[in-house]
């Protein structure tokens, strides 16, 4: 961890970036200066909107046209200093070979109509690194270093044939094959499930040491930064408010914002207080031997059994691709089940169609992962919530408006924001609106499909707390689907662990750690590892109170 005697690799001085929106110009980055040393991992921490990604894009020259670099210099080891505010092709020399970048969603970072081989060929040719006839041996070599057992097959593949984790490893290989000095990794694992996450991070770390690469790790995940990085920088509203050795900053945060971030990470057992009462003999929702295959050979759901009672919160834990979302879609009838039954209050609703299916929407509501995409971008928050009431002809026009106002207030969308449309609101606010919309019909069951996975840690905590409060207030049951052990452990009465289309184990939330099935253990291990690695480094602040915002 000693870096004092290392060579300086990258120096950024006084970077200022502004964005133009309509006629307003606002400053996104203000006086950013930092140095990166050879072979270090430097984490850049901050919530979304703090300007993290803008730094990444400014360093590699990919800012959108609406952004302008007002001042700033970039000094890369062995290169003349670049004045970032001057337009022109300074990047052509640096991109790829000087500074490389890893994107959040690797699946999107690869061209869908090009094979992996074509990606390597184009990349190597652009830098005249490959003999014309055979870029594949270089590609295969790097893929092998990134843990692919059969590089030749990967080279022949297209992006859609690979999993998210595999795509990210391919992207890493593509970046590293140019031997860059600095790698910017912008949330490289937030789109992956925990198992893949661990894999990619391990590789990143070991290769970084091997190659003496400097990595700028941009993340909102404190645990990740703590486990991987030598130093951290905390970014708030476009300024670096604190920087230093990771252990020091996280153990003794000096700035108030850093403390706030640290507080948000501990989702301490919020659900312990909630007691399960009024359990009846007939469960609210009962799944029996549910099967679904999407018409293909492979079964997505392979006999799922579950009983959800009144006021109960059940978590469904599993890796991506295990069938969690399909299960949610089967319950509400978006995907028809091949076999098995779904019972709501004892009534078989599996084959409900048309009007009957529509009526069920009053009882079962779904909240999606991508809140922004699940809201019509042309409707204001108020209109969105009223729409579902209108669909069932509930109340008069005025009553609907009042109920929408009330609900939006309940979920923390204040008067001023109620007239805004989704593009003008943050992702967290969008998810609040989606929840308000789901609750407008007073459903008995709320299904949350990865409802907080796309959100920042601190926002995640807020939304979970909100759900909990609403659950106490309105008394509905929740089916909480997530890949994140931390989210479920603290939130659910029961957790069902899903693997390859079936539940392998069901446990009370508080006793998840005592799970016995191999897959449960695997999920727990990969989730715990980052925390466990980080824990000794800093004393944790526990049981922080959460602002009920």
């Amino acid at each position, binding site marked *: 961890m000693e870096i004092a005697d290392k060579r300086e690799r990258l120096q950024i001085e006084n970077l200022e970036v502004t964005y133009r929106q309509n006629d307003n110009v606002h400053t996104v980055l203000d006086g950013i200066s930092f140095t990166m040393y050879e072979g270090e991992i430097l984490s850049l921490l901050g919530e979304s909107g703090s300007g993290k990604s803008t730094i990444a894009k400014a360093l*590699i020259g990919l800012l959108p046209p609406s952004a302008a670099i007002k001042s700033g210099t970039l000094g890369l080891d062995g290169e003349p200093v670049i004045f970032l505010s001057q337009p022109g092709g300074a990047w052509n020399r640096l991109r790829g070979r000087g500074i490389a970048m890893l994107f959040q969603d690797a699946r999107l970072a690869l*061209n869908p109509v090009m094979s992996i081989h074509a990606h390597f060929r184009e990349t190597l040719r*652009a830098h005249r690194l490959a003999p014309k006839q055979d870029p594949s041996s270089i590609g295969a070599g790097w893929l092998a270093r990134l843990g692919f057992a059969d590089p030749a097959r990967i080279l022949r593949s*297209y992006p859609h044939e690979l999993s998210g984790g*595999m795509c990210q490893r391919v992207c890493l290989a593509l*970046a590293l094959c140019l031997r860059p000095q600095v790698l910017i990794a912008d949330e490289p694992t937030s789109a992956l499930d925990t198992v893949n996450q661990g894999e990619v991070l391990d590789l990143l770390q070991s290769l970084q040491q091997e190659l003496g690469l400097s990595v700028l790790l941009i993340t909102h995940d404190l645990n990740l930064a703590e486990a991987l990085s030598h130093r951290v920088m905390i970014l708030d509203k476009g300024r670096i408010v604190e920087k230093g050795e990771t252990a020091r900053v996280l153990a003794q945060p000096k700035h108030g914002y850093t403390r706030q971030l640290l507080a948000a990470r501990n989702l301490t057992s919020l659900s312990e207080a909630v007691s399960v009462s009024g359990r009846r003999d007939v469960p609210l929702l009962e799944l029996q031997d549910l099967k679904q295959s999407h018409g293909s050979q492979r079964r997505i759901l392979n006999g799922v059994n579950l009983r959800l009672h009144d006021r109960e919160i059940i978590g469904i834990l599993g890796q991506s691709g295990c069938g969690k979302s399909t299960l949610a879609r089967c319950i509400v009838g978006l995907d028809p089940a091949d076999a098995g039954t779904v019972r709501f209050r004892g009534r078989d609703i599996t084959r409900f169609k048309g009007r009957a299916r529509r009526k069920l929407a009053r009882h079962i509501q779904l909240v999606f992962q991508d809140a922004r995409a699940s809201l019509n971008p042309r409707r204001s928050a108020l209109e969105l919530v009223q729409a579902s009431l209108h669909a069932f002809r509930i109340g008069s026009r005025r009553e609907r408006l009042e109920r929408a106002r009330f609900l939006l207030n309940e979920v923390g969308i204040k008067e001023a924001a109620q007239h805004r449309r989704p593009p003008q609101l943050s992702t967290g606010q969008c998810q609040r609106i989606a929840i308000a919309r789901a609750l407008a019909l007073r459903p008995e069951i709320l299904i949350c499909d990865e409802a907080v996975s796309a959100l920042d840690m601190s926002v995640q905590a807020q939304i979970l707390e909100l759900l909990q409060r609403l659950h106490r207030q309105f008394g509905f049951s929740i089916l909480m689907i997530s890949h994140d052990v931390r989210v479920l452990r603290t939130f659910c009465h029961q957790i069902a662990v899903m693997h390859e289309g079936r539940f392998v184990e069901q446990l009370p939330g508080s006793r998840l750690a005592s799970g016995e099935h191999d897959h449960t253990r695997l999920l727990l291990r990969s989730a715990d590892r980052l925390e466990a690695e980080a824990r000794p480094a800093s004393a944790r602040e526990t049981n922080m109170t959460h602002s009920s915002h």
Partner: protein
Amino acid sequence: MGRRLLLTFLQTLMTVFAASIVLFALIRLAPGDPAKLLIGRTMEIALDERTYAKMLGEMRTEMGLTGSWFSQYLSWAGSLLRMDLGTSFYTQRAVAAEIGERLPATFLLAGTALLIQVGIGLLIGMLSALHAGTLLDTLVRLGCVLLASVPGFVIGLLLLLALAVKLELYAIGSEAGLSRLWLPALTLGLLGAPQMIRVVRANLLSELGQVYVQSALSRGLGTRRVVGHAMRNVLLSTITLIGLSLTASISGAVVIESIFAWPGLGEYALNGILHKDYPALQGYALVTVLSVVGIHLTVEALYVWLDPRITRRKKEAAHE
């Protein structure tokens, strides 16, 4: 694969069958009696009522118009199976032969027009997208609106006036051949171009905003290469439009063909309508239906061939 092919074939057959019934009925629903038309108004006035009625009856029998629609359809469909489209009321020649003579001209015109349209669309659309927001882009968009809002025959006549009459670059009266092809093709191509330009522009703009473009740039690929990457995706989404345009040119060339006296199917159809020539119209409509279905099938096949996401089924499990 074999099953899917068979299924597609059966679907196609059903489509053609249904279309043949509709076109057969529609042609007969139109007002007017072909037998009367053929005998002519002079005879109706000259002859006394009984002789005229007798003559009309004989004519109808000869033309095969006496039975019910159902039996008429059966006999038409029966001869269809023998590749016989019937005999034209008007010219007394085999419809199949007449269409056979004119089909190449229409296909040649539509094909050339498509090439022009795609060429203009890709080039201008790309330029417009790469210079989005500039004066050039604005002018292109303005031009598109203008071109799209003027009726086709007006553009055709204007071009004819300018190029054939004023500049004398185009000899309208000469023998129909390759030298006469370019102006009608240009007109048809220009008509389809605005749509093409707009689709290419919009698609390229959206592709350039994708992460894979940023990712390619971050690996140091030059602008030209990156635009090339994006264009591959744009082309894929443009294939549908190309197919639609081709069907539009084939079925909609009637007006342009008659303006430029191009001896294609359009002119044939026009004559067929004027003379209530049932067999000719049926033949024309059937050939149009067949080419539309054929083009759609080709587009689908092209998709499967060009898009790896359709061609190659997901082979790998999610994890190694």
